[in-house]
């Protein structure tokens, strides 16, 4: 297990290297000149040429790439062309914001998705099953943009239960320490602010959770159906075990592996794919950070941002791989 983990971690190196190269070229394939974008509509030709030189964008691509790679290895993530600050110091608050949102969204998706899947399988072809699967279908095809605005309209404007957007009430802001606001408010013992932060999380997390929730529900249902038809389940039932334990203990344990895979993939997707949710709910997360960077041709930020998301994606799936063995002792790694 240990050797396997180490091997897996080392195998990440070529993956990330390849990734950095792909990202590097894709970004340069985007038409548009960063110098022009930075200087705006007003810029003169000379100003653009000067800036291009200053940014090192007139150098051959391989020099630019190796400079970038060298920087990464020494912990220098480069400087944002637009804000002129170090990316390494700038990126954390965005990353933390997205991680907090994705975590809560995933919790919601897993709890509702897994349970809906289990109950649908348990009472196959019941009205619940039909309703849950139709909802799941609607869920995967829901445009987040529309869903988000509808949520705001219903829960914030009409019912006045929840705020429409942002991470906190700006008139009474949270003092950030770790930038995970749930943790920050707990550390400071500010329960009033904790409540406020959680309220701000509900709508974007629900919107973000919709698609993974639907996918998880469908996968759980189908694998559960398979497991529940197997012999050992019949035996368990024959022993007179209560159905609840049969389903939640014996079946789920055997059905969870594919579900776990999906959860891993979806969590990775949430980290990078939250741009729409972050835009509608003005959540200052990494998706919007990168999106803004794309609009400004802020190469270093785009590169680093995508690379970090890819790294997280790979890491989450590594954890999931390792979890298989922990959950199912029959799985052995060599």
């Amino acid at each position, binding site marked *: 297990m240990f050797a396997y983990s180490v091997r897996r971690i080392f195998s990440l190196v070529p993956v990330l290297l390849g990734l950095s190269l792909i990202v590097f070229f894709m970004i340069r394939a985007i038409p548009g000149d960063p110098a022009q974008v930075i200087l705006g509509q007003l810029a003169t030709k000379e100003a653009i040429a000067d*800036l291009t030189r200053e940014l090192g964008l007139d150098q051959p691509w391989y020099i630019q790439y190796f400079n970038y790679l060298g920087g990464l290895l020494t912990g220098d993530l480069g400087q944002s062309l637009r804000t002129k600050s170090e990316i390494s110091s700038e990126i954390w608050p965005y990353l933390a914001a997205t991680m907090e949102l994705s975590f809560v969204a995933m919790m919601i998706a897993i709890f509702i998705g897994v349970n809906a899947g289990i109950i649908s399988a348990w009472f196959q072809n019941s009205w619940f099953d039909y309703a849950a699967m139709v909802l799941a279908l609607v869920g995967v095809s829901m445009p987040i943009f529309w869903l988000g605005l509808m949520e705001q309209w219903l829960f914030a404007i009409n019912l006045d239960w929840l705020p429409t*957007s942002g991470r906190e009430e700006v008139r009474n802001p949270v003092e950030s320490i770790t930038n995970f606001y749930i943790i920050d408010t707990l550390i400071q013992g500010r329960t009033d602010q904790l409540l*406020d932060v959680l309220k701000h999380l509900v709508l974007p997390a629900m919107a973000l959770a919709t698609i993974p929730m639907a996918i998880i529900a469908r996968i759980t249902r189908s694998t559960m159906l398979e497991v529940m038809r197997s012999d050992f389940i019949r035996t368990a039932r024959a022993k007179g075990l209560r159905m609840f334990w049969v389903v939640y203990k014996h079946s789920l344990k055997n059905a969870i592996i594919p579900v776990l895979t999906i959860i891993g993939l979806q969590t990775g997707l949430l980290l990078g794919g939250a741009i729409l949710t972050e835009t509608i709910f003005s959540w200052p997360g990494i998706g919007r950070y990168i999106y803004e960077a794309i609009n400004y041709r802020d190469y270093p930020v785009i590169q680093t941002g995508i690379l970090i998301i890819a790294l997280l994606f790979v890491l989450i799936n590594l954890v999931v791989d390792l979890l298989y063995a922990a959950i199912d002792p029959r799985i052995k790694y060599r």
Partner: protein
Amino acid sequence: MKRRFGLMFFAFILILSLGLAGCSNESGGKKTGGESGSDGGSSSGGTLVFGRGGDSTSLDPAVTTEGEAFKVTKNIYETLIEFGEQDTEINPGLAESWEESPDGLKHTLKLRKGVKFHDGTDFNAEAVVFNFERWKAGNKEQFYYYNSQFGDVIKEVKAVDEHTVEFTLNRILAPFYKNLAMSPFGIASPDAVKEHGDKFIENPVGTGPFKFKEWKRNDRVTLVKNEDYWKEGLPKLDEVIFRVIPENSARLNALNTGEVDIIDGVNFSDVEAIEGNPDLQTFYRPSLNVAYLGLTNTRGPLKEKKVRQALNYAVNKQSLIDAFYAGAAEPAINPMPKSVAGYNDAVKDYEYNPEKAKELLKEAGFENGFEIELWAMPVPRPYMPDGKKVAEAIQKDFADIGVKAKIVSYEWATYLEKARMGEADTFLLGWTGDNGDADNFLYVLLDQDNIDSNNYARYENQEVHDLFIKAQSTNDQAEREKLYKEAQVLIKEDAPWIPLIHSEPALAGRADVTGFKAHPTGSDELATVEFKK
């Protein structure tokens, strides 16, 4: 067992979050005014949250060209000359009075006494000289506006005494005072500039009504009241927070719930609903912009003046205004709005007349029409709320005279780049003025010097160019206006664009906000804003 614990934990989180939804909204969303700041005799003005579409890129106005940046710095910094409340006339700012030498090359400004920067240092002639020398020493990339507005014109800035500065120019610069009033030329504390160096862009120190407190990028900028502000009784608010809410509808939603107090970038289609809501009000920014369809003068049939004129006759501007601007706009006749001095009232627009358009096409030898590309802006701008829809309407107008237009769009940065290089046949674009001077519209957008820059339509006319240059080199306002009026006649005849619209961008606020005046340049001063008791 472990997993069951896990599930229970999930359940707990979910129930907690749903439970919160049920709690009433007393703690959040309401103003803190009235409770805060009641000690020490200072009045309690409350906190105003201004919702906007994008974040600042810099809090040092000298190093940026972006409107979103100036929106904030306008309240931290002051300029030597100030624009009027809702116009671009010149008024005393940090300079109380000024004098021009007879040859127009020396300007002597008397500075206001007793003004202090937020860091406690004195505002004086030395500080002004320091700022101008700082800008002058930097290159174009660093201080874009200084270089474009003053560049090689300012020869020397000298402190005559503690409160007098003298500018010596290399040549006459007609809009000298208007330029001084532009947000990029806010006077910064020399001590703070030296202290923060590279980090000055996030540690602004000026003399304005509000002091900088905090900047959370992509989220908000918080300013607090400058208790020692030199204008008696101002500012009225304790705190101003500029919050970024990128999506227009979401921003309006936040205004509806009271999470923000004022928003800009209101969709014209939402104006009716806002006006029907007693909790809200609308504001209009006086127009200092123009939206146009550029007819790249070097491409295909568009090389023909008659073709360009024909296209001008083909477009029904009024129907665009009714459909997409909720009436809050005027048809554009000249390349600049009426409020700019030198606007030529006598110029007649090409009226909407498809028959006449067809006739002209026939004369130009395009009896059977032709095919062109029509580029649609991918992003909303105050002068162009929905580029795609406006393009579709124009496409139909063109089809009526037999011109087949194919709508094309690119991502914004690419769009600008390609259009600038003359790759578009016809393209939607616009301009918001910086200082309300005719030069800032006509020369910038239509002079042959600015091909490859802001003259996207690649319009070239030596006669027009001569008029522009003459107008730049005299300080005689009446003479300048005459020259610009002449130029507008020639431009109308040549028809390098279809000038479409001058819009009045809409803003909205909570009903209890008073004293807000939207400025045509887009930089709103919030010192006089307060909440109705």
